[in-house]
């Protein structure tokens, strides 16, 4: 029955099918737009709210619309001294966050590239053993061994220092594992040719391997920068001196200050502006270096 109708009605069939395709496309776009809306709207609403006065925000919560307070709020967030010691500004926190992000990403890449190079390119009796020692660290996130790590930093006198902030975070094998995989995929002929040409191990590493790994380094750098920038628990424990706070660490302070019931109007506008400043640099990096970032993320976890 259906066969007959289909063969008979040949001419209107294409138009019907194109129409059906269009409807399914509308459906697809609706789902995607809804998804994009739910991702974007919360942040957009916070951005709009920063243009309102504190009293408004206290009374009505998040606001839809635009007022004239945005510049003042961002200005206060960046330059007004805050905290119990009045020693910390948004600029200072931004600087600390940048130091943590760059320090962590660069440190991690340098150390793990060196280790991966040693494991892959040298005839070393304990190479496999070293690999497994490093590899085991993948098993335990910092959160699990947080208390003893804190004790270790304390006893080394590294609390409230950048080294104390950065180095313990480097103690995991993600980077080493990734570079090991990548080095192994590089053809063997390359190192043979280099040796025939008389290049030593250091020259080979700096002149051939590092340039060859450029895109991989970029991809890993982006992921590590975002990871370092977004650290919360470790900076919370290790930095008690407000001058050392990062933006993300500062969120804890903001929440505590806003939760206090005092006589003064809580500075919501400034707090929301700070939370936006805390997300802008990593978000921009992820958006602008999207293809590297996606490559690094999906390849490194293989």
């Amino acid at each position: 029955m259906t066969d007959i109708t289909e063969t008979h009605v040949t001419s209107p069939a294409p138009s019907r099918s194109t129409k059906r395709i269009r409807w399914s496309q509308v459906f697809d776009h609706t789902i995607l737009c809804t998804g994009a809306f739910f991702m974007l709207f919360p942040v957009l609403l916070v951005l709009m709210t920063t243009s309102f006065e504190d009293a408004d925000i206290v009374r009505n919560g998040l606001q839809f619309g635009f007022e004239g307070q945005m510049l003042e709020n961002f200005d206060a967030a960046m330059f007004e001294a805050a905290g119990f010691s009045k020693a910390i500004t948004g600029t200072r926190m931004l600087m600390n966050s940048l130091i943590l992000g760059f320090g962590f990403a660069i440190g991690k890449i340098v150390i793990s590239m060196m280790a991966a190079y040693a494991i892959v390119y040298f005839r070393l009796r304990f190479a496999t053993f070293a690999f497994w020692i490093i590899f085991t660290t993948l098993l335990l996130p910092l959160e699990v061994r947080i208390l003893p790590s804190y004790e270790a930093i304390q006893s080394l006198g590294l609390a409230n220092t950048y080294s104390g902030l950065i180095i313990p975070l480097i103690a995991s094998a993600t980077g080493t594992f990734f570079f090991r995989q990548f080095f192994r995929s590089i053809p063997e002929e390359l190192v043979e040719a280099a040796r025939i040409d008389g290049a030593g191990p250091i020259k080979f590493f700096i002149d051939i391997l590092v340039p060859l790994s450029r895109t991989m380094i970029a991809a890993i750098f982006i992921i590590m920068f975002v990871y370092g920038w977004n650290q919360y628990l470790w900076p919370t424990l290790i930095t008690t001196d407000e001058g050392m706070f990062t933006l993300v660490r500062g969120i804890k302070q903001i929440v505590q200050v806003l939760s206090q019931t005092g006589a003064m109007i809580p500075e919501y506008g400034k707090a929301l502006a700070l939370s936006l400043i805390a997300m802008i640099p990593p978000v921009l990096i992820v958006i602008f270096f999207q293809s590297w970032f996606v490559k690094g993320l999906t390849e490194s976890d293989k």
Partner: protein
Amino acid sequence: MKRAGFTTVWLPIALLLPQLMIIAIFFYWPAAWAVQSSFYLQDPFGFGSTFVGVENYTDLMTNTEYGKVARFTLIYTALVTFFSLSIALLLAVKADKVIKGAKSYRTLLMWVYAIAPPVAGFLGLMFFDQRNGPMTEMFQTLGWDFRLGADYNSTATAMVIVAVWKQIPVNFIFFLSGLQSIPKSVREAALIDNRSASGRFWDVTFPLLAPTAFFLLIINITYALFDTFGIIDTLVRSEPGNNPVTLVYKVFVDGFRGNDLGGSSAQSVILMVLVLLLTVFQFRLIERRIHYT
């Protein structure tokens, strides 16, 4: 190791040394310390400790509070994993299908990856605010007396929603790249064999995505267990009280606030074993994954 590797001895050792030193000081020593102190009962004022064997562990097993936290962690992890995976899969399938605007959708759906968990938690605090949060108002019009920080289920709901929101981008990126790596020939063959789109998805696309999905399952469980610390800490305003918290949060609270070093260490060790099992499981899967690609 490469067959044609260098034979120098001192250089690889020098290259490995920084990594090994950092790992020894900040990984092996703390991990060993945690295992050791889990068998001791520390004096709260720091005057030595006494060996108590497995007492810290048996205490945990019989502790109703710990059982409650473990149960919440289980439910929380299951909900966060399920919702963030299924929503991301839906979005990835659609983003893979559309021709116009595919790139813009990708950007719009993945950028939240870069937001720090506590910052997401802070946004959550505003959206679920007891007095004037938009989400609170929505729940109240639906007839639910939503009270963040005061009511157990309200706080738990807010935690799940914020954690899912924050995790969708990662899953989306992996699903999309998994979908895009399915060869065109396979898709075309499927198109000929199977007319219905949903049939094609479940019979062809989904099995091909299964390795990615399994891998993401582990990633999401780890995320819900550990990386949501910042979300939870902000949503409870660092004052857990009667609010739901996860196992990792309890390690932190007992160790740093309660000064119960032995108990906190025992909890750490339990989590270590849990992560160990997850990782072993994950590597079995990765071995399988290589066969697929």
